[in-house]
């Protein structure tokens, strides 16, 4: 690999950057400009926003999000195992059992600590 081999990459970068600026410039020059309160809003369509983004909200949301990610990943891990169940045989079964035991201990922990209760 010599530096010269990377010239196609540079050309790609130039085209990407050029197109971005070109598209911005063209919409700026040719596009119609109509100002109204709705157009000036952060989101033109969808639900109206409430307050600004610096509002504080309960840490419980984070907790739910973290727990969701954890158990979601667990399922992601189990699918390939289930598909290859026969090939993986006993070793795979034992490995998955260990994994689930560890996970269940975690579930028990969060349950007893009250992480699953909203109030």
């Amino acid at each position, binding site marked *: 690999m010599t530096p010269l081999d990377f010239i196609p990459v540079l050309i790609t970068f130039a085209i990407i950057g050029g197109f971005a600026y070109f598209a911005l410039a063209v919409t700026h020059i040719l596009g119609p400009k109509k100002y109204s309160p709705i157009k000036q809003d952060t989101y033109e369509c969808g639900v109206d926003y409430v307050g600004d983004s610096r509002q504080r909200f309960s840490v419980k949301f984070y907790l739910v999000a973290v727990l969701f990610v954890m158990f979601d990943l667990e399922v992601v891990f189990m699918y390939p195992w289930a598909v290859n169940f026969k090939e*993986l045989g006993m*070793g795979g079964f034992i490995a998955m059992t260990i994994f689930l035991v560890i996970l269940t201990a975690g579930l*028990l922990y969060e349950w007893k600590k009250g992480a699953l209760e909203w109030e």
Partner: protein
Amino acid sequence: MFDVATMQISRLLPEMILIGVALAAILVDVMLPKGKSTRGVQWTVIIGLIVVLASTFFNRENTGPAFGGMVVIDGFTMFFRLVLTFITLLIVTVSETYLGSLNIRIAEYYLLLVFSLFGMLLMAMAQDLLIVFLGIETMSVCLYALVGMSRHKHASNEGAIKYFLLGSFTTAFFVYGIALMFGVVGSTNIVDIMVYLSGVSGNVPMLAWASAGLILVAFAFKAALVPFHWWSPDAYEGAPTTVTAFMSTAPKAAAFAAFLRVFYVAFGDMSETWTTVLWVIAAITMTFGNLLALRQDSVKRMLAFSSITHAGYLAVALLTFDQMGAAAILFYLMIYALMNIGAFLVAIAVNRNENDEKGYAFEDYRGLVFRKPAMALAMLVFMLALAGIPPTAGFFGKYYIFSAAVKSGFVGLAVIGVLNSAVSVYYYLRLIVFMFLKDRDEASETPGFNLSGEMVPIVIFCVILVLLIGFFPDALLAVATRSVTVLL
């Protein structure tokens, strides 16, 4: 194909037991009533760690790579397994009463210690940069939380957030280093990297240099070497003192374990350059740590800066790039753990009010020798050991490091090191002088000047070992020398 037999899982028996201990401790925690003492969890962890130590000992012949060369269990791994588990055991044993005095009754404290121990064990056995990364992260995430354990103290939160922000920033350096190395070698395995770099002998590609530099930064951060040390004084001071004792010993040992394996084995062929870089880092680390330690009025902060200085001494041994230097590192890490944990424990006992901003003052030690002679005597031993004065083990630790440096031709650095250790005597002796000063108003003496029950045996144990290794350093040095033969 998935085959359990080829993974050599039995070589990781101690680690599996450790995970079992963590799970058992979690279950004990949820079964015990809320808000009460966490003794149950503590005892579970203590017994579990003793089982881990025993299993390491009885499984010591079962060496070799495991998980397809991702990790390797050899003498080096064994040494750090014992040292790291041992340090954690000491800390877990002394924590309960101290945490009670801080009103921290959180069983997660013990769980985080166990999980971070697991991360450190991964670092010690890693033979793949990705496993090193996994270990560093497992260890660090637990430490971030441990530093912030005193949730209602400003300093604790401040230390935790600083440590967390800078730590995650360094993680990026490390990952970038791994990515570049993978780009060059096509593998993240340490042995593969070594084979590749010795194959291109002398003509190392630029990207490999960049990668080694980034990885060096990450390790220097974890070992708190100047100029990557800025997090450490605040994190050490803010953290509960038992956590500080833990952080200044075990993670440092783990960082040097991974440092040694990666730089000696993988980057061995680039040694001429990285020893030069480390030369500068070691020189400024020793000097900087010392100069700031001189100015401290808080014993805890003084010990924090002195821990930076000691990391500098270890860096001196690291850059010798020979067996003697590596053995000196292992030797020093062991005795440093003993004397530092001992010093922190006495500091805990002397400190009158944990919630006072001006806690851990040198003034508190005034006349200690007349009031609590045994405790003062213990502190005397630890301070002399930290200063490197015979007949304590600290002397031999420094002696081995500097003689290794001289033997490898780093005479200039050895001179800087010896001068620095002469400077450090000033602030260690300052504490001793305070202990021997007459009390100004003996009537004002407050109670609560005692080591709590479980700390007494640990402090005595540390004193005895520091003295014993001071008189008979050969046994430990022989073990350390045997352990590092796999590196070079």
